[in-house]
């Protein structure tokens, strides 16, 4: 175990030692601890959404030579809280002609995979809700179901804009899921494991962004498309199809979509951090400095890298115009996919050559 014990781990251990005599049965304690982890993840999601919405508006503001929200709370920090209160108190409108159950379920269904994906994020050494041995696979499997709620919302809204948006979301997400997965395969080949903690630990020497720069690029592009952000925000496509699948939603239902968008943004950034940016480990630096920053817990590094990735996505959003639907598809299938496949080939050859060199 680490000498400077992580404060969060200490809290968890204390809680466990407190619960142990109280509940007796270790299985019950385990289940309780999972409940605590779930609550913590929910807290992360909601807390993050509040911060990210504010941060996005601030970033957008400063990039557009304006201050962004600055009225509610210090430097506008409470703006999202005020907006949330507004959204919750709004009348819940159900338009005539919607497919009632599907329409109602879509935002809820959207939220579930997003939440489930957080289970495998290694926030720090040992600070992971479930360290599955197929962690990365689990994430990809769960995250890819995000398409379904968008289609549900688009189909059930009884609105042509929503329908077009829903169809676009299926086309786009299915197309970009493939390069996304393929870009991660290179890393998996290097590590030889799908376990999140192993992937991070394998980067203690060198981050995979340096070994797999092309894969990182493909991942960032595909992840932008996965999260429906500019230049791939065709699903929402504000100036074309109003708000896509979300057109008919208002109030709390709409804000669930909004929340899921930011939760997803955090999720893809966290995966990028885990897989390419060394996870909870500090950046590569001389040993002297490494000791000097050793007091910083891993989850601070993790958060810092994740937020950097989020900033990158925001930066894209406030710089680029949007692709057209046919360009999006041809870019995905004709450029990204072959590139991802080539990357796998090169990685395989590289690993083989390296083994020969080591062996010889």
């Amino acid at each position, binding site marked *: 175990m680490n000498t400077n014990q992580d404060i969060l781990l200490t809290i968890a251990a204390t809680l466990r030692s407190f619960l142990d005599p109280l509940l007796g049965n270790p299985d019950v304690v385990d289940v309780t601890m999972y409940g605590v982890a779930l609550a913590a993840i929910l807290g992360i999601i909601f807390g993050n959404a509040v911060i990210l919405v504010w941060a996005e508006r601030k970033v*957008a503001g400063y*990039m*557009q030579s304006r201050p962004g929200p600055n009225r509610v709370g210090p430097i506008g920090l409470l703006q999202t809280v005020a907006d949330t209160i507004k959204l919750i108190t709004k009348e819940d409108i159900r338009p005539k002609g919607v497919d009632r159950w599907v329409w109602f379920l879509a935002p809820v269904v959207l939220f579930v995979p997003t939440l489930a994906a957080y289970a495998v994020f290694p926030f720090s050494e040992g600070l992971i809700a479930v360290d599955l041995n197929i962690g990365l696979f689990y994430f990809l499997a769960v995250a890819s179901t995000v398409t379904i709620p968008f289609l549900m919302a688009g189909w059930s809204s009884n609105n042509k804009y929503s329908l077009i948006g829903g169809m676009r979301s299926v086309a786009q997400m299915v197309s970009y899921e493939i390069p996304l997965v393929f870009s991660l395969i290179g890393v998996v080949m290097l590590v030889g494991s799908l376990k999140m903690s192993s992937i991070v630990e394998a980067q203690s020497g060198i981050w995979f962004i340096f070994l797999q720069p092309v894969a990182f690029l493909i991942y960032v592009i595909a992840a932008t498309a996965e999260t429906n952000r*500019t230049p791939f925000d065709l699903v929402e496509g504000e*100036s074309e*199809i109003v708000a896509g699948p979300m057109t008919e939603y208002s109030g709390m239902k709409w804000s669930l979509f909004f929340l899921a968008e930011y939760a997803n943004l955090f999720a893809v950034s966290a995966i990028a951090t885990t897989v390419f940016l060394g996870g909870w480990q500090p950046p590569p630096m001389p040993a002297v400095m490494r000791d000097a920053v050793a007091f910083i817990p891993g989850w601070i590094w993790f958060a810092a890298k994740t937020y950097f990735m989020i900033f990158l996505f925001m930066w894209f959003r406030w710089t*680029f*115009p*949007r*692709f057209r639907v046919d360009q999006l598809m041809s870019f995905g299938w004709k450029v990204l996919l072959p590139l991802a496949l080539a990357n796998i080939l090169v990685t395989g050859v590289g690993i083989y050559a390296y083994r020969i060199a080591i062996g010889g």
Partner: protein
Amino acid sequence: MQTQTFELNMGPQHPATHGVLRVVLELDGEIVVKATPVIGYLHRGIEKICENRTYVQSIPFTDRMDYLSGMNNNLAICQTIEKLMALEIPERAEYIRVITAELNRIASHMITIGVLALDLGGWTGMVYCFRDRERILDLFNSLCGARMTFNYIRVGGVGWDLPEGWLDECRRFLKDLPEMLKTYEDLISGNEILQMRLKGVAPLSAERAIAMSASGAVLRASGVDYDVRKANPYGIYDRFDFEVPLGTSGDNWDRFYLRYLEIIQSARIIEQALEQIPEGPVMAKVPKMIKPPVGEVYHHVENPRGDLGFYLVSDGSPKPYRWHARRPAMINLQLLDELSRGTFIADVVATLGTLDPVLGEVDC
């Protein structure tokens, strides 16, 4: 497989219809089979109103037609009335007219560029364009006290002389303009995604453009050299050295980029006008009550959106007998249907942005 087309109502309330334009789209999936613009949501009957006003009173109404280029509209109506009265106006006023009209053209084109970027999803480009346009609006505000509805150019001259230091402020703006244009080039027009979106989409042949009475950048993008400032110089435009940028294929990209190039030419005209501007009065001797002789006149000027014409019929009374405006935006908008056919929904938005209608003018 048997497929069915469906109808989609884009507008009158839609984020990308530049006001209250309604486009009834017939779609085959995402591909447009037919696009029918439905206009009139902003119709105020300005022609009828102005027939019940005196000549001078009709000038502020032209501000409300194409509200992005009020100076050019003022210029057009005033020159039409002056042509009818055969009125000479002072030199200084002519120069001020040219400077303000060209500044207004720059402001209007900035909006066109920015809003097209917004229609294609690039928010930030729009904000930069609006920010820089603010400099021009501030200039106009110090000149006539209004930012968009000027009523500055009057029959016989201009309403006010230039305030102190205005010309220097104008020169400062022109000095900063290249940097602004560099920003647009880097962020908007140089962007590969944007070029991909616009190049080769919705081309318009020169013959068709002429036959459809298109004007302004829409016509010139197809390679037709028709700029009223050159083809039929009004005011003192024949004294300036400038070029008329022309496109080749008449696609969305040409229509868009032409506006960018026209800003540069407008800046050239203003620079020359700033050098040549003489001292003197800014208002000719005009009777208090304007009663043009019996007759009728058609006069056109180059508005940022195209060939803006006014047709006035005078019966010798203080009110025009007939007051008609040839609105370039309306006539250009006719092209939306044929340009959109076979393109994607996203292209309809882009085509609309490059046709650049201002609904205040379309509906009048």
